[in-house]
């Protein structure tokens, strides 16, 4: 896979064994591919818990939705936990309307997301 340069808007960090990917302010094709790249990079290096933070995200367009579905599928295939955190009301409403919330956990804050994945890991053990 090509390595799309990660912009200031999309970046990732790790807290313990959880990778957190910040989605930027507008999730479209360009930023979506960067988010997907970051997610796949972490999954391929053994991370089993991903949090995608929509802290800065104002809009998610159709391509963004399609890319998120791809990330959901990748997480499922690797038996990993995926949490969407800090999405604004409009984005949550979009995810609900389209049914994405049936496939992914939603957290209001980053801490809540970290708690969710920690609990999931404990359950799996």
């Amino acid at each position, binding site marked *: 896979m090509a390595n799309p340069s990660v912009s200031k808007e999309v970046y990732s960090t790790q807290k313990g064994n959880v990778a957190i990917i910040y989605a930027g302010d507008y999730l479209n*094709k360009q930023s979506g591919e960067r988010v997907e790249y970051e997610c796949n990079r972490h999954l391929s290096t053994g991370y089993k818990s991903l949090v995608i933070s929509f802290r800065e995200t104002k809009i998610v*367009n*159709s*391509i*963004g*939705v*399609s*890319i998120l*579905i*791809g990330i959901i*599928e990748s997480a499922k295939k690797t038996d990993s936990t995926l949490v969407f955190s800090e999405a604004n009301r*409009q984005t949550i*409403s*979009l995810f609900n*309307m*389209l*049914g*994405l919330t*049936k*496939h992914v956990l939603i957290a209001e804050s980053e801490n809540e997301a970290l708690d969710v994945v920690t609990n999931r890991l404990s359950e799996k053990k």
Partner: protein
Amino acid sequence: MVENIQKFLHTFSALADLGQEIADTHEFNEMASTALHLVLGTLAVMRGAIGEYNPEYGSIRLIAKRNLDNNLPTELLLDYFENRELCQVGISSVSAEESESKVLDFVTNNIEWLNEAQVELVLPLVVRERLVGIILLGEKASGENYTVEDKAVLSSMSRHIAVGLQERRQREELERRNREIKQLYDGLRTIYRDTVRAFAAAIDCKDKYTQGHSDRVGKYCEIIARELGWDEEEVEGMMIAGYLHDVGKLAVERNIINAPYRINAKESSELNKHPMVGFEILSPIRHPYADIPQAARYHHERLDGRGYPEGLKGDEIPLGAKIVTVADSFDAMTTDRPYRRRRSLEDVLEDFQRNTGKQFDPRVVVAFFRAMLKEITNSGVEKRFRRLLGRDYMNAETLPVKLQELISKIEGHKTAAAA
């Protein structure tokens, strides 16, 4: 109500993006991949693919896919009836329970892998009743069935994508035809060139002393045109002009051409008709290059007006004819004739120096001898002069200096004249 508005805006925005994507993207695979993203993202469909139909092979090749098993067949063969049915039926469900009409033959014939790939919907991509591709879609993220509204949106998107595919196919077809025409044209040019060379050989056969003359003049003309920086087509045209410059000699008595003595005035007058005869022979032919008849007509004109057949002066003489004049004269001086041996190259250079500005155009002479100088001084340059003149003819150590002097003097005269 709010959800409906949001759904409408999400869909509307995707349709707008799709239209723009198809209009803007020149890279086809990128367009297909983005179009698939837009279809999947609009209704949050978990998986899907776009396939392009190739009418020549009657097959569909998947050109974009998302979240589908890699074991999918890369190419699907369609028979005539499957094709017709896809064009007529429109969006169809894979499952018999969900299908509003009879399940497509295409689905029945491919049901095993369609089920394995969790494909739920088949969207034929049709333009003017012709199949251009298909879209395969999996289940919606919501787990709900596709609604009538969903299918209306998908139908609209598939029309956009079908047009995009069709345009690409037409563009490719146009490019293919252009390539074929180009090949045909190149073939015809080769035939034309070979015919001209055969014709040139026939002209030279009439004169036992000047065999190969037209061929050599053609090659010298090519060298000059290339040195003058002309494009490939013009260079080739100039070469052809060289091959054909003496075609008018076909109408001159063989005993005049082959006379082993200096011909008399009457014979000379007869011989001097050959440029005009050549022009008359060449004029009715539609040559792929410009000015070939003119080059034959004026290749015995001189800058000072003392040439024939019309006594043109300076810029009245076409440049193509001036090039042939230099090439023709050089070959005449450097080959044996019935009444004399060929002259030494030093002697020839002196002749050109004396007659440049009177008989020969300085630009042409400079280009000609600059090409010769490049060949002598640069080992990487093709040895064309050496092949045409013979290995020993150009061996004088002083030759590069003499050529440089000749070029400098002519250029000096040109500069002085311009000042």
